[in-house]
């Protein structure tokens, strides 16, 4: 053979013989022999890997036709697999190297050691393609049948070996068995490379796994769960969704709402959302995502048939429980006549929490606000009620809206914002019953004497304006114009779009179709989508 090979052929044959020998006897001497030889074996495998790295696959398979056999035999020896991570990684790397092309380039349909099989299968009138498609499934089945009888180390090795095979559909049952395998140890049995690889492939939608397998994966491997959540987030932010129904669809598709029925997973996902909110400074898109996720989660939780379900309030353990229960009541579950009352109830509780001196830490304030953000549909309802109902509780609703858009701890700031909001609201209400309005009238009502408006107040004012346009008779006529000239000029398309699709979603869910507001929303949305 070639003299330039760093791995003499003799060595290979030596190790192959050793592997056969070790496989056949289990005496104490042979076990000791194994342990003594392991460091040299590791060196040898490392050498093989190095020389393989620089060869092309044809040469590789010509030089080392029996690599597969060697590694196959070794991996069933409990001492070899228990030896250490490095040995296992060496196995894995070598296998990865020789995988695909070596078989593609092998010269016969069956290979030298399968002539008998070949004759048999041909006599049946089948080809190697038929044979191998079934064989892989059977090997997978047999492997996981043996899981109950082998050591955790072996399962670890199998998980390593499966890494290059993850996208092969025949191996999926084996993957699922691995993911749901729980060994005797408290540490993770499966290799983290395997878990990462499965998660990546799943997120890219290259394989389909059962829900219980994915749940198992996320429960046992935190980085996978985090990646999955971030992946969902990116998808939602980057995709051009034109309705909240689409957003809900994408969220449900990710399997995260269902997985979040497990409190540990919910807690982690929630934490990630919280960080996103903080990093983006409370961007309205993020708030919408959180709301939609919560809604999907609550729906998944209600559909869950398990006996030992956690009550919903258990997912928000550090919050004021009556507030949680109140917020969990979705507007769609209450008749519209009860909305005002419920909003007052929520607001009173929130006010009490905020102004109670005993819990006035910033963290508590933030947590209460973050909780409210999960159920931000109530803020939308508050804005609508401000304009539609004849109620005397406009103070309450304004407070709630103000709170939604800025959870500052500073009492003075809050008061100032409320005062401004109240001013704008009063002016708008004066214009409410006018049937003919002009854009300038509305602009005048919304503007402030000074230019020093806080950003949060701007969000609030915009919300009020959009509600005005939708729910007042005068506003309808100038809605299109107002939006295109004023709002878009101030570079707030996304925000306006967001408000409109939330309103559209609400109307759809409530089954409202023919009202004027509904039609207007759809028209406005169409315009915005068109101009985008």
């Amino acid at each position, binding site marked *: 053979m070639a003299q330039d090979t760093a791995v003499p052929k003799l060595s290979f044959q030596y190790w192959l013989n050793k592997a056969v020998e070790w*496989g056949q006897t289990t005496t104490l001497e042979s076990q000791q022999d194994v342990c003594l030889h392991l460091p040299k074996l590791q060196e040898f495998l490392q050498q093989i890997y190095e020389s393989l790295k620089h060869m092309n696959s044809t040469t590789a398979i010509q030089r080392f036709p029996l690599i*597969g056999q060697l*590694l*196959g035999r070794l*991996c*069933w020896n409990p001492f070899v697999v228990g030896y250490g991570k490095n040995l296992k990684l060496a196995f894995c790397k070598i*296998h990865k190297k*020789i*995988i*695909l*092309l*070596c*078989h*593609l*380039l*092998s*010269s*016969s*349909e069956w*290979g030298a050691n399968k002539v*008998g*099989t070949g*004759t*048999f*299968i*041909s*006599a*049946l*009138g*089948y*080809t*190697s*393609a*038929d*044979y*191998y*498609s*079934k*064989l*892989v499934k*059977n*090997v*997978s*089945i*047999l*492997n996981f*049948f*043996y899981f109950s009888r082998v050591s955790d180390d072996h399962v670890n*090795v*199998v998980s390593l*070996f*499966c890494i*290059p*095979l993850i996208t*092969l559909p*025949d*191996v999926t049952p*084996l993957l699922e068995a691995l993911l749901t395998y729980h060994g005797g140890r408290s540490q993770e049995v499966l290799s983290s490379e395997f878990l990462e690889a499965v998660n990546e492939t799943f997120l890219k939608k290259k394989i389909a796994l059962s829900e219980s397998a994915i749940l198992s994966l996320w429960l046992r491997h935190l980085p996978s769960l985090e990646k999955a959540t971030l992946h969902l987030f990116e998808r939602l932010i980057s995709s051009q969704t034109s309705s909240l129904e689409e957003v809900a669809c994408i969220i449900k598709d990710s399997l995260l709402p269902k997985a979040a029925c497990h409190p540990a997973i919910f807690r982690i996902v929630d934490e990630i959302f919280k960080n996103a909110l903080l990093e983006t400074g409370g961007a309205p898109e993020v708030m919408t995502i959180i709301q939609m996720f919560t809604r999907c989660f609550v729906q998944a939780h209600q559909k869950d048939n398990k006996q030992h379900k956690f009550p919903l309030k258990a997912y928000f353990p550090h919050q004021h429980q009556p507030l949680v229960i109140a917020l969990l009541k979705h507007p769609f579950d209450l008749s519209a006549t009860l909305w005002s009352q419920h909003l007052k109830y929520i607001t009173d509780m929130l006010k009490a929490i905020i102004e109670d001196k005993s819990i006035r830490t910033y963290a508590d304030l933030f947590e209460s606000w973050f909780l409210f953000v999960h159920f931000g549909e109530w803020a939308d309802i508050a804005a609508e009620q401000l304009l539609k109902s004849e109620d005397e509780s406009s103070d309450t609703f304004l407070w709630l809206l103000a709170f939604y858009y800025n959870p500052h701890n500073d009492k003075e700031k809050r008061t100032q914002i409320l005062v401004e909001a109240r001013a704008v609201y009063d002016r708008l209400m004066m214009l409410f019953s006018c049937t003919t309005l002009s854009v300038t009238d509305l602009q005048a009502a919304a503007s402030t004497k000074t230019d020093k408006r806080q950003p949060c107040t701007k969000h609030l004012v915009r919300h009020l304006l959009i509600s005005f346009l939708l729910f007042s008779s005068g506003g309808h006529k100038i809605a299109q114009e107002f939006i295109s000239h004023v709002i878009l000029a101030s570079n707030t398309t996304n925000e306006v779009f967001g408000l409109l699709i939330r309103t559209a979603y609400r109307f759809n869910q409530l089954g409202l179709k023919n009202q004027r507001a509904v039609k207007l929303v759809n028209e406005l949305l169409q315009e915005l989508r068109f101009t985008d």
Partner: protein
Amino acid sequence: METLLWQVEQLPGLLAVSRSGQVRDWDPPTLDRALQWGRYFQHLHGRFRAQPRLRAALGQRLRRGQPGPPLGFGHLGRCPELLGLALLGNRALPPAACHRLLRSLLLPPSGQATPGPCSLGLLARRRAAVQLLPPPPSSAPARPEELEPPLRTEAQLLLSRLQEDEEGQGPEGVLEKLPGPRVYRVLAALLLLEQAGDNAGREGASWAEHREGAGPAAAVLSWLLGDPGRLSAFCRLLPGSLLVALSARYPQLGTSYLRLLTSWGNRLRFDPLRGQWVSSRCLSEDELSWEELRERFRCFMRGPAQLREAALASLKNLKTQDGDFEVCGLSVWTDLLLEIALTRNLLSSSPHLLCLCQL
């Protein structure tokens, strides 16, 4: 229709050429055409799968072709792989064509949906997967789950062929063609799979129940039991434990097996010089040594109660027929019963001696 038949008749020729030296004149466009033919044949397979008469006609035409391994309708479906493999292994293929071939194998051709479930790349990945997944240690399988994967696969394919008998050969026709002694091991695996219930070895074989006559297991059994030579080879080759497991499910097999053991036992003669039972001539395929006979009956004793009783009854009967001796060396059946009783007594009194008895 005639065009179709003529086209299909070209497939054996195409495959033969891809394996021969004639490819040295192939340039990339010629290669592309060949691959297109491959895909076309696969397409034909997909279209006519569900039409038995057309299927039969096409199959017949295929077999009219060149000498070499006979092709069937199923091979049309595998055409891309067969062609690809033949060309890949052909050293005479010039480099330009070879490059084109590799490219087309690694990237699916544009304008086509993802290659069917059996593309060559997938075949290669599966072969590699089989290398990668470690083979579990082999032991004598008594349950379907324990069957070695290659054996299990061959059994499943045989089952498919028996159910999907496209050429109308009938079970005997299929089984005759298979090379023994391998066929016996595969048949045992098939019987083991079938015994596990409806869905053990079959995948999507709901039409099996609608077939006239008995299922594949029954067909296999009647083929085995129908010829004494076959039965003898079958029972000789397979281990006693497996045969007992199968006898539990297939009583006719149990009866025939016991009868066979009887005839084998009757051929043994006692050698007073050595004090043992020996076969009258050198061991041929039709004979069993004393040790093996004893081991086979021991397997019955370890089996389910029904079989145990049947074997014991049979032995007692034979002992009586032979003259009902109680002394060793006169009747092989007496001696067997004595050995078995000895084992059972030891077992019942001290179970940990079981290991000694199995030496």
